[in-house]
């Protein structure tokens, strides 16, 4: 791995990423993960339980946001710890049949802390949808040594 702990500084940006999401992506995630809760793919079910519409799985958002860290680290296995709180839903519009995304999630990462003894860097992710944070305390710990 080319990253070196001593060359990193707290507050340093690691990059940004835009994630386009469609209803089909949610069906794919449901199948891949085994989470078939209909609030993630059925409009009438979602509105029937007082949601504004179909929402992304929190774990889809968490799982896709961390790719920024995996790619920065150069090895996905370097992510030794990853946590988040789910605070707001990502509402995914039905754009089936068009090439438009149903939602766009924005991800930005900065170095939040360095631990020389453990040889780790903590990356703090800011994950937003429609201008609002959808994840809080979203932190990935990367092993560098």
């Amino acid at each position, binding site marked *: 791995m080319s990253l070196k702990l001593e060359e990193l500084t707290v507050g340093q940006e690691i990059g940004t990423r835009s994630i386009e999401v469609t209803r089909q992506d949610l069906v794919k995630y449901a199948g891949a*993960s085994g989470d078939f809760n209909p609030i993630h793919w059925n409009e009438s079910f979602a509105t029937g339980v007082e949601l504004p519409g179909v929402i992304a799985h929190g774990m889809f958002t968490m799982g896709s946001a961390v790719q920024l860290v995996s790619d920065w680290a150069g090895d996905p*296995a370097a992510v030794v710890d990853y946590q*988040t709180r789910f605070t707001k839903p990502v509402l995914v519009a039905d754009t089936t049949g068009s090439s438009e995304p149903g939602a766009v999630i924005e991800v930005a990462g900065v170095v939040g802390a360095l631990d020389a003894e453990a040889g780790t860097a903590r990356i703090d992710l800011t994950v937003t949808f429609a201008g609002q944070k959808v994840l809080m305390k979203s932190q990935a710990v990367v092993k560098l040594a």
Partner: protein
Amino acid sequence: MTINPDLQGRSYPAAEVYDVGREKIREFARAVKATHPAHFDVEAAKALGHSDLVAPPTFAIIVAQRADAQLIEDPDSGIDFSRVVHADQRFTHHRPIIAGDQLRAELHVDGVRAMGGGAMITTRSEITTVDGERVSTTTSSILVRGEGQ
């Protein structure tokens, strides 16, 4: 129906074995829009020192949510799945999950806290290989919404 407060401290022993397959790693990686070659190309994974394809950092949710299902489906728990909201999630990897792993998860109910008419339930899955090697610890809190929440 109310949440059974006696759930706290309860454990559910490891049930079925989860076999981690290459195609499942590739499928899950595509589903979370991961593009790192270590998820798709065995040679790329080997070049990084891994014996086979590397699972994405949140892959363990598949194993953990199967373990959680034991609690949610336990008629004694009082949990209505249609009222469950995922509140937080953490993965601590003792080592990466690699294609070919045979995993088991032991579920522990670490906390049950009444919130309004509902409850916040914190669970922990200790994921190991069938030989007992520690792989991942996952913790999850779910909010079971009460009436009108």
